[in-house]
């Protein structure tokens, strides 16, 4: 290893040359770094602005609309004599509740049970299920509407009905619940399960009485998020529920829904109807934010416990 380097002098010369070049551009590099970093932070501000602007507008224009009549009256159509005659959205409220209730009845059992299965098994069927759930979770929601129309409205002959809309919503909700359930069950420490088995309990008993209660808050969180999504979705129900101007709620009746009321009224020529839209939007927004915070809270509490 005698001749690994140049002589000391050449080395020093190289060092000096490198330092000189480095020194020359240094100030510019530092300034450039600061500018670009400022731009990145600006981008963050820009990213937050829409939420702020949106929430602000909706609160501003929505609060005046939220009178009692808004919640209790049926909708009415303004005319030239009464341009501000708008009524309320009680039909849409009832319809939305019915839709989400039926959808949850269908989606939660299927979703939670399937999620438990994929969490507890590592075979081919579980992998297929996971792939399917991920694919369906990312599918455009309007396709669920098309599906429900083809199957429930036409094939099963229900026509425009609450059951068709709920079916579409359920198809939307199940993949979300599956993924959340699987994560929640997988997060239960393996040691807990092993302890149960070691005490002689049979596997399914271990799942039911030990694993599930521990995973419960995660599962509930998944269901809350799925419900929250279903309430706000317009595309799947757009052409499956038909719309109703009465307080319909039976599965076979055509019903109304809050997002649909928004969709229709927003394009109305009457400013008074367009104003109602903000009230509905505010209600939806509050609901969704509460659901989101509840989910966060539950997840946080679970994390603190473990």
């Amino acid at each position, binding site marked *: 290893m005698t001749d690994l380097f140049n002589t000391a002098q050449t080395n020093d010369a190289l060092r000096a040359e490198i330092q000189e070049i480095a020194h020359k551009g240094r100030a510019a590099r*530092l300034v450039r770094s600061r500018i670009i970093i400022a731009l990145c932070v600006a981008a963050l501000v820009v990213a937050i602005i829409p939420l702020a602007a949106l929430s602000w507008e909706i609160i501003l224009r929505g609060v005046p609309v939220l009178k009692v009549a808004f919640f209790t009256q049926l909708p009415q159509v303004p005319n030239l004599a009464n341009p501000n005659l708008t009524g309320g959205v009680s039909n849409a409220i009832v319809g939305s509740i019915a839709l989400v209730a039926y959808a949850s009845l269908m989606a939660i059992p299927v979703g939670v049970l399937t999620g438990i299965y994929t969490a507890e098994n590592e075979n081919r069927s579980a992998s297929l299920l996971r792939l399917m759930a991920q694919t369906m979770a990312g599918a455009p929601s309007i396709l669920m509407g098309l599906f429900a129309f083809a199957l429930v409205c036409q094939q099963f002959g229900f026509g425009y009905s609450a059951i068709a809309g709920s079916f579409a919503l359920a198809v939307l909700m199940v993949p979300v619940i599956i993924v959340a359930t699987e994560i929640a069950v997988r997060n239960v420490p393996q040691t807990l399960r092993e302890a149960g088995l070691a005490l002689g309990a049979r596997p399914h008993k271990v799942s039911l009485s030990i694993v599930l209660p521990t995973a419960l808050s995660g599962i509930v969180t998944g269901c809350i998020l799925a419900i929250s999504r279903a309430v706000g979705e317009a595309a799947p129900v757009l052409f499956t529920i038909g719309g109703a101007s009465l307080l319909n709620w039976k599965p076979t009746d055509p019903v109304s829904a809050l997002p649909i009321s928004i969709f229709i009224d927003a394009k109305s020529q009457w400013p008074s109807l367009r104003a109602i839209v903000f009230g509905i939007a505010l209600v939806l927004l509050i609901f969704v934010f509460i659901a989101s915070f509840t989910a966060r809270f539950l997840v946080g509490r679970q994390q603190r416990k473990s």
Partner: protein
Amino acid sequence: MTDDLTTKTTTAATSSGVKVAMQLKDVAVSFNGRTAVRDATFDVAANRVTSMIGPSGSGKTTLLRALNRLHDLTPGAKVTGQILLEGTDIYGSDLSVTELRTRVGMVFQRPNPFPTMSIYENAISGLRFNGVKKKSLLDEAAEESLRAAALWESVESRLNVAASNLSGGEQQRLCIARALALKPEVLLMDEPTSALDPIATLRIEELMSTLKQQVTIIIVTHNMQQASRISDDCAFLLMGEDRAGELIEFNTTEKIFNSPIDSRTLDYTLGRFG
């Protein structure tokens, strides 16, 4: 804790007039108010290998990382005392932190070549960061640094291959080359062989004696046999009762291992704890 450890503040080197590369004076590092290491005072002689030894938790790595201001990254970290590089305060306003880091390089515990870059690009990455564009200069620096890390022969035919193709030991030598390409004055090494197999470890240890002719090396190691093999000077640190590391003794390696002044140093080198 006794106060008569005058060896803490002398260096075997300065007393014989050898050039000093870095000086530490009462250096302490704390995180959010909790002291991690303190009372570090010693001089690092130029063109020698200075090792920092001691059991885990004694603050060796914390102290090492203060020398190239890596603690600037950590919110809540505070470095007090004075650290001089060739007489200039590294926390002062005369020396920008980016310049400091071109003059004080670092090699880490686990080999960490940049995964998206080739061997060549890794070697010159430091130069590129600092605006060096001249191809001839880059090529020359790459070859020199790879030779210095004893890697040139095995990679010269495949310089454009991804760095992840190298073995662990080769990757670490690539990291050494990467640091050397900037021609720093000091090279900090944080347990550079602890993640490597014995043969790779030996190859890197063999580099030390030739490397130190060009750079001053400060190496943290938990392997005291390694320290006794490769280092000229040695600093022994230990965690005190308040869980803060402190410098116990600093002297030539020969003295630390054969005739230490502090009984704790003796206990450590004899393997009585660690």
